[in-house]
C-alpha cells in the first residue's frame, strides 16, 4: 500500500455533470437551433438555385405574410407547452372566430364590435379549456382534442355550411402594408416579440417554466398554479381569436374548413420543430419562429418547383419528423457529454 497525499483543497468543487460549452466544432453543433438554421439555409439555397422566382422581395414578403397567422398561434402555444400544457383546439377556435366574425360583419355590425366580440369569444373558449384541464385532471391533449372537434362543428353551424363574404369590411389588416411590410407580418412579429419578452423577463413567464418543469415544486413554492394555468389557456384562446381575425381579413370572409385541424397541426409542428419540450419545462420563441418560417419556406419552395400538393404534405411531414429526431439527438448528445 502506498499513500499519495494531495495538497489540501480549500473547497470541494463540483464537476459539471452535463456538457459545458467548449471551443470546438461541437460547440456549434450543440448550440441551440443550429440544426434548424442549417436546414433552413440548405432549403433556401437549393430552391434559389432551381428557380429565379424564389429569392425575390415579393416572394419573401409573401411567404412571411402567409405564415403570420400560424406564427401568432404558435407563439401562444410555445408559452403554454413550456408550462406543460397543450391546446389542440386553437385552429378550431380560429374557425369559430372567423365564422362568427364573418357573420357579424355580413349582418352589418361595426368592425370595432366584431373585433371585440370575436376576441372575447375566443378568450372564453380558451378559458373553458383551461377550466376543464385544471379542475378535472383530464389530460390537456384529450380535453382540447374534444373541444377542437366540438368547435369545428360549431363553426360549420355558424356558417350554415356556406361561405360568407365580408366584402371590403376589415380589409386593411389582411392586405395593406406599412413601409412595404404587410400589417399581418407586423402583428405576428409583435406577438412573437411580446411572447419572447414575457417568457424571459416576467415572473409570469418564469412561472410557466417552473410549472412545466415540476408542477408540484411550483405549487409548493407559492406559485398559484391554478390561476396561472387558467390565464395561459385564456391567453392561447385570445391569440387564436387574433389569428382568426387576421385570417378573416386576409380571406375577406370565411368558408367551411377555414382554420381547423390543419392550421393547428402546422402550429404544433412549428413549435415542436423549434425544440419546445412536449413535456414542458423548456421552450423558446426563437425556435418557434424558425420553425414557422421553415414550414412556410418548404411549402413555398415546393409550390414554386411545381411539386404536386400530395407530395407537399409528404414533405412537411418529413420535415417535422427530421426536426423531431434532430432535437432528440441534440438532447441526448448534451446529456451524455
Amino acid at each position, binding site marked *: 500500500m502506498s499513500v*499519495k497525499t494531495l495538497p489540501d483543497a480549500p473547497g*470541494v468543487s463540483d464537476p*459539471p455533470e452535463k456538457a459545458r460549452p467548449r471551443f470546438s466544432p461541437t460547440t456549434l453543433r450543440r448550440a441551440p437551433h443550429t440544426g434548424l438554421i442549417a436546414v433552413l439555409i440548405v432549403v433556401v439555397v437549393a430552391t434559389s438555385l432551381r428557380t429565379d422566382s424564389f429569392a425575390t422581395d415579393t416572394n419573401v414578403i409573401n411567404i412571411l405574410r402567409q405564415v403570420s397567422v400560424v406564427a401568432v398561434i404558435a407563439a401562444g402555444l410555445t408559452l403554454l407547452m413550456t408550462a406543460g400544457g397543450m391546446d389542440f383546439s386553437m385552429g378550431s377556435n380560429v374557425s369559430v372566430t372567423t365564422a362568427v366574425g364573418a357573420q357579424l360583419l355580413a349582418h352589418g355590425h361595426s368592425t370595432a364590435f366584431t373585433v371585440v366580440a370575436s376576441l372575447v369569444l375566443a378568450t372564453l373558449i380558451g378559458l373553458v379549456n383551461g377550466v376543464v384541464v385544471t379542475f378535472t385532471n383530464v389530460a390537456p391533449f384529450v380535453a382540447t382534442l374534444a373541444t377542437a372537434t366540438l368547435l369545428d362543428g360549431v363553426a360549420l353551424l355558424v356558417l350554415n355550411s356556406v361561405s360568407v363574404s365580408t366584402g371590403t369590411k376589415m380589409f386593411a389588416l389582411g392586405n395593406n402594408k406599412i413601409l412595404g411590410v404587410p400589417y399581418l407580418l407586423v402583428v405576428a412579429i409583435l406577438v412573437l416579440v411580446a411572447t419572447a419578452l414575457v417568457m424571459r423577463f416576467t415572473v409570469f413567464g418564469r412561472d410557466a417554466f*417552473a410549472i412545466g418543469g415540476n408542477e408540484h415544486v411550483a405549487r409548493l413554492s407559492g406559485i398559484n398554479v391554478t390561476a396561472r394555468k387558467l390565464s395561459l389557456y385564456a391567453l392561447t384562446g385570445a391569440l387564436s381569436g387574433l389569428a382568426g381575425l387576421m385570417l378573416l381579413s386576409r380571406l375577406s370572409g370565411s368558408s367551411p374548413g377555414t382554420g381547423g385541424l390543419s392550421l393547428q397541426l402546422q402550429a404544433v409542428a412549428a413549435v415542436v420543430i423549434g425544440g419546445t419540450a412536449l413535456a414542458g419545462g423548456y421552450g423558446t420563441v426563437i425556435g418557434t419562429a424558425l420553425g414557422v418560417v421553415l414550414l412556410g419556406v418548404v411549402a413555398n419552395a415546393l409550390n414554386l418547383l411545381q411539386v404536386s400538393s400530395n407530395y407537399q404534405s409528404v414533405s412537411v411531414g418529413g420535415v417535422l419528423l427530421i426536426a423531431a429526431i434532430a432535437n432528440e439527438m441534440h438532447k441526448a448528445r448534451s446529456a451524455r457529454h
Partner: protein
Amino acid sequence: MTTPRTDAVLRVRGVTKSFGGAAALKGVDLDLHPGEVHALMGMNGAGKSTLVQVLSGVHQADAGTVEVNGQAQHGLTVHKARRLGIASVPQRRELAMGLTVAENVLLGDLPTRGGAVRWKAVNSEAGKALEALGIDIDVTRTAGSLTVAEQTMVEVAREVRRGGRILVLDEPTACLSSEAAHQIRELVRTLRDEGVAVVYISHYIDEVLAVADRITVLRDGAVVRSAPADEFDAAALVRSMVGRDVVSQRVQRPAPKVEIGLAVHGLTDGRAVRDFTVEVRKGEIVAVLGPAGDAQSRLFDLLSGRRRPDTGRLAVDGTPVPFGRVHASLASGLRCVTGDRRALGLVPELSLDENLMLARDRFARRRTHRRAQLARRAAPLRRSYGVVSLAGNPPVGALSGGNQQKVLLAKWLQTEPVACFLEDPTNGVDIAAMADIHALLDDLASRGAAVLLASSSAEEVMRLADRVVVVSAGRTVAEHDIDTITHDELVATALGGQPQ
C-alpha cells in the same frame, strides 16, 4: 496504490476524464477483487460517480486503461460492460413499478413457451434467484408495494441473475431505517461470500468501516488513499476525504422561548400517521425519528398543504392554519423542506439562481425577472450556503446531490420561517456538507424558529434536537428530552424495543 494481486477482476490504471475543461478524474487507479467489498469514499463531486460511470460504460475515459479479467477494454459501452458482468444499482431504483417482483427479476428474459409466458416458471425461477441471496420477499407482490430496501434487494437479485460479477451499489442505505440498512449490509456480505466484487458507495462512515474490506478515498478526482479497511479509523477516513478535520458536534443554543411556534394536535391520516401530536417552542428543535418514508413524507404532505388529513389541528405561532391549502401553509410562516428534492424540491431545468429564489421572489410578489439582478441577489446566498458551481449558473439538475440539497435548504431557510419542517435534510450529502447543514439548522433555531426535524438518523437527532419523538408505523412510541437518553437507547427505541 493497492498491492498488486493476480486475481483482480477489474483493474483501472491512470484513468482521467474531464468535462468541458473541468477534470473530474485525474489519473485514478483501482483494483477490484472477487469476494471483496470495496468502498469508494469521497465528498460530493470527488469523482465517485464519474469513476463508476467510466466502469459501467456510461462515460469513456479520456486516458488510462480499464482491464476486465486481465483483458484491456477499449471503448467500453454500457452494453459491453453488462456483458462483462459489470452491473450497477443506482441511487434511484429502477424497477417497473407495475410489474411483480418475479417479472422484475426476470425482466427481458421471461421464460416462454410458444410465445406465451410460463408464469409458474417465472415465479419459481425468480424465487430461486432471491433465495440464493437469502432474500425473503414474496415474488408475486408488485414492485410498487415494496419498501426502498426491498426494491434494492430485488434489483441486486436481478443483476446477479443476469450474471453481474462486479456490482456497484450507489448509496444503498441512504434514507433507510437502521433495521433495513442492516438487511442491506447482510445482503452485501452474502454477495461477497458468493464471490461477487462489490463496489460500495456510501456517506456513512461507520457503515463503511463495518462492511468494507478495502477502502479507496477520492478527493478532487484523485485517489488520496487506498488501503484495507482495518487500517482506517473514522477520524482518519474523514480527514482523507475532506482534507481537514470536520467537527459536527452539539453546540449550545440559546434556550427555547416559551411561546409555541408550531403545534400539531391529533394528526391522523390513514395508517401512515396516527394521532400525531407535537408542540415545538420557538428556538427549539424537535426531532421525529423513524424510518424514512414512514410517517415522515406523509407529514411533509400534510404540513405543506398538499394533502388533507382525516383529522387533526395545526397552529403556527398560535394561529390555526387550515390543512389542505399550500397557500395557507406558506402564509402562516411555516416552511416545509421535502426529503425528496427531485420530485418535490427543485425544478431541474431551471438555473441554480432561479431555483434559489423561486419561493422568495413569489412571496415578494415580483413581476419582472432580470438575470443580472437575480444573480446579484443570489450571490450572497450561494456564499452563505456554500453552493459551489464551476459553470456559472447551470441548470440545477446538473449539480451534484449535495449541492442540490444546499440549494433546496437555502431556498426555504432564507425566507425567515416562523416554523420549519425538514425531512431528512442531510439526505445524500457528504460529511462536510452535513456539518454545514447542521450548523445552518442550529442557526435557524437560534434565530427563534420552531424547527420540526424528521430524520432517520439517530446521530443527527442526537446532534441537533432538544427533544425527540420516536415514531413507528405511524404511531408515536416514545418521547424524550435529548439529555435524558443515550444514542444507543435511542437506536433501540427506534428499532421497536424499549430502552434498557
